[in-house]
């Protein structure tokens, strides 16, 4: 079983019994998109909601507005069918609640932007584990579209 690690701002894809893992999601949002029948999936580790002033074009995985289309494209390139795509997301926490008001925290903005761009790209959201004040590890088992999320000191949760 090949485990592929997805770092901040990156996008990776895997097939069959491939496993995609991202560790240390704080305010970032992990996005998994997969085609269960074809057994292909991809994951993005989104850093911020939107690129500004044309920055970030070289790293589309960093921003929700560029990452979602790029992730859709990458999973299609790997053999997925757009019409069969489903998504699950995790992250968007606020680790420093004392410093950032809940209404304008980066994590929540990231979650909102990711959801908006999934909708714009017609990918239905099948599961989520978002916000709160704890970091997360997110694992996508491509074969069956199962996503497991874990925070420190907590039991793994399946979404």
């Amino acid at each position, binding site marked *: 079983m090949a485990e592929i690690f997805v770092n*901040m701002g990156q996008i990776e894809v895997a097939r069959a019994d491939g496993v995609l893992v991202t560790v240390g999601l*704080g*305010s970032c949002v992990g996005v998994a998109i997969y085609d269960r029948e074809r057994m292909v999936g991809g994951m993005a580790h989104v850093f911020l909601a939107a690129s500004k002033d044309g920055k970030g074009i070289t790293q589309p995985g*960093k921003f929700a507005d560029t990452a979602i289309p790029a992730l859709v494209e990458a999973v299609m390139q790997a053999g997925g069918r757009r019409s069969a795509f489903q998504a699950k997301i995790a992250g968007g926490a606020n680790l*420093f609640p004392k410093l950032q008001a809940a209404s304008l925290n*980066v994590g929540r903005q990231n979650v909102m932007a990711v959801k908006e761009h999934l909708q714009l790209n017609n990918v239905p959201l099948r599961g989520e584990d978002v916000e709160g004040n704890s*970091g997360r590890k997110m694992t996508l088992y491509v074969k069956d579209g199962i996503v497991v999320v874990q925070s*420190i000191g907590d039991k793994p949760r399946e979404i």
Partner: protein
Amino acid sequence: MDDSQQLTPQQLDLLRELGNIGAGNATSALSMMLQDRKLEMVVPEVAILSLPETTTLIGGPEAIVAGIYIAVSGDVDGHMAFLIPEGSAKELVGSMLGEESAKFDEMGCSVLEEVGNIVITSYLNAISEMTGLMIMPSVPGLAIDMAGAIWSSILAGAEILDDFITVIKTDFASEGKQIAGHIMLIPGKAGFGKFFKILLGTDRG
């Protein structure tokens, strides 16, 4: 094109010097809080890295660390983080409270937050004295979590959009390595220019 990619060797030296002065003062403050326990400071490193590459600075994203974060404003902008591995953080709390087994309960967390606050403000005070710039720290924020989660939250809160991020990192450790950690300064866009103007304008012999 990104400004931070174009730093000259002289500018890199200046940033290292800032790290030296700041972290020197910060580690001596920490040493004093630990009843004059000896702390070794490693020569500061100026790292210019892409976002994913920065996780190498913190010893991998999954390790559990205590992170204290302070935003910097005033004449210069920037962000500061004091990151210590879980074991070091427990040792630190234990030795501050004079207890054998330290916990991250309310007391433990408030000790960590205050230690981080003093370490970071000592760093900033030294830089402020050296440059004559007014530097204002925010209130500290504390998180005990995966290093990657803390680090990425700090960078995201800093709204870093550039492809490359400049980090001035100084490592320190106690003699037996029971307490070790990193002090990071991420200068903001306005910060760079002002530092260089003042430091390069000074006759440094």
